[in-house]
């Protein structure tokens, strides 16, 4: 009961935020929610299914460019552009998943990493379509005929979509598919013996994770006015990976918490000038040394201690 009350309070606060917060705060909130969706997606692949795919930024980018191009060309409603971006990302994720079936562990990580870099190169070089190195301007999205111009306009949409993804994630982790994901992570052999289609589940995880990343990209286009391939490289994937690891791999709360905390942290660090890389690096090392299971691990330990 206490939990439910807490959830309601948080929800109310989230919906009330635009009434009190400045555009800058809402921009941060929007950006953090995009990170949340990205983290939830990568957590499905790495945390739940144990597949080390490191091409998340590429799918994020596919989502962004698809949504932007569709929006700029046709002015289609934002839900259509968002879904189109997510679907295309999922489709490409499906193909990457199918190709990567024969690889595992380090090889999977490295090949998907290479795929991610290759996709980034395509973004940067396919100038007629993506604007290449000039970047691409994003026209305001269209929601039922209203133009989403400011962060404030986009906030409620981003919030609702993010909440929808959160609910979807919770539903998936509780579903047979979620069980199958974890079964594959824990033991492919036993999973197969229990009737889990291991190949199918792996591909599904890739596609689903890419769908999230693509949708996160679509969300980004609703409040952002510019995209540049520089922000779609391996470092972005690593940032999301760090979020889910710091939060606690394989945990929905961890993915959300990690995204929020590291995202906020990064913004706060901006004030710390040139020390920020040192601090970020130190935090990663210390966290791995003393909280290897992330924040969730700490929480669990605390609960167990009581």
């Amino acid at each position, binding site marked *: 009961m206490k939990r439910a009350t807490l959830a309601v309070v948080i929800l109310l606060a989230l919906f009330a935020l635009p009434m009190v917060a400045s555009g800058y705060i809402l921009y941060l909130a929007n950006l953090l929610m995009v990170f949340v969706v990205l983290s939830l997606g990568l957590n499905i692949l790495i945390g739940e299914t144990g597949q080390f795919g490191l091409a998340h930024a590429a799918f994020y980018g596919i989502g962004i460019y698809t949504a932007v191009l569709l929006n700029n060309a046709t002015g289609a409603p934002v839900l259509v552009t968002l879904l189109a971006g997510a679907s295309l990302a999922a489709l490409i994720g499906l193909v990457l998943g199918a190709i990567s079936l024969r690889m595992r562990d380090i090889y999977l990580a490295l090949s998907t990493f290479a795929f991610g870099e290759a996709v980034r190169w395509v973004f940067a070089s396919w100038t007629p379509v993506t604007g290449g190195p000039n970047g691409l301007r994003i026209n305001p999205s269209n929601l039922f005929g209203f133009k989403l111009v400011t962060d404030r306009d986009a906030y409620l949409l981003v919030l609702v979509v993010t909440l929808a993804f959160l609910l979807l994630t919770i539903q998936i982790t509780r579903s047979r598919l979620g069980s199958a994901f974890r079964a594959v992570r824990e033991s492919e052999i036993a999973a197969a013996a229990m009737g889990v289609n291991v190949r199918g589940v792996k591909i599904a995880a890739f596609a689903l994770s890419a769908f999230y990343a693509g949708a996160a990209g679509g969300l980004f286009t609703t409040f952002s006015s510019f995209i540049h391939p520089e922000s779609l490289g391996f470092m972005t994937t690593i940032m999301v990976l760090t979020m889910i690891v710091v939060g606690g791999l394989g945990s929905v709360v961890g993915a959300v918490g990690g995204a929020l905390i590291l995202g906020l942290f990064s913004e706060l660090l901006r004030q710390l000038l040139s020390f920020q890389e040192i601090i*970020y690096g130190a935090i990663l090392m210390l966290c*791995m040394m*003393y909280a290897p299971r992330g924040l969730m691990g700490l929480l669990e330990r605390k609960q167990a201690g009581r």
Partner: protein
Amino acid sequence: MTWELFLLFFQQSLMSGLVTGSIYALLALAMVMIFNTTDVPNFGQGEIFMVASYIALVLLVFASVPYLVMIPLTLAAVFFGGAIFQRLVLKRVALARGASVNLVIATLGLSYFLKGVMRQTGIAEVPRSFPALFPTDSVSIGMATATVQDFAILGLALAAMAAFFLFFHFTRTGRAMRAVGMNPRAAILVGVDIERMRWLVWGLSSAIAALAGILISPKLLMTADMGIVVILGFAAAIVGGFTSLPGAVVGGFVIGIVENMVGLFVSSKAIVVAPFLAIMLVLLLRPQGLLGGKATAKKV
């Protein structure tokens, strides 16, 4: 394209590819060593390489230490730096029941940390290099051109690789390191102190990266972001099979040559993406890499 031009391009790409490839090979070697003994792909490798280059620079240029003293000093400093990182951080991460991803993220933390520290010193603001030990006069072989320095880099890199090969195969410690990589349990049972081997390997691997830095820095300019070169070392390691030391060397040369060929025959713009395409191609056609052993099927 005329036949003559083709020949020129072909020969030059082999020549240049071998020289830069030898550096990629050293970086790949360093990476594979660590991966083999500790199962960690070291994302901090590039920054170790970077810091090592700056240590060399400071000793050589700012402290005016002669070349022949600078090299052992740098190697020793970086050796201990790598070893200390393993002892201080990674050992603790492993003890905390960290999975391999935790170790990877710790190395990532190292990478940020070193980059930040180096920027803080201020010497990384402009690209620098230090005077080469060898003349940069050009020499022609066939139609290709290279400098004396290039040959020295290639020669020294090959010599270093040979030395490491001999070390790994014919010394007690080298053999023990390979044993730890192949079968840690069995290594413990024959009395190998595997914790010691692990920090030794980190030290040694860091020293190899340092050597690569010393060799290439007169040629490639130093910045705090020069560690990015290590991606090519990664590519080389993957192409070679990621667990095979000779594979890493071959992979290094392959990547070096492919880079040049793509630049000359395809487009300068495609140089950066060539290694990644090579990775994907190799993994698709031969997932275990060119020289990697066949992946063993898991026993049911």
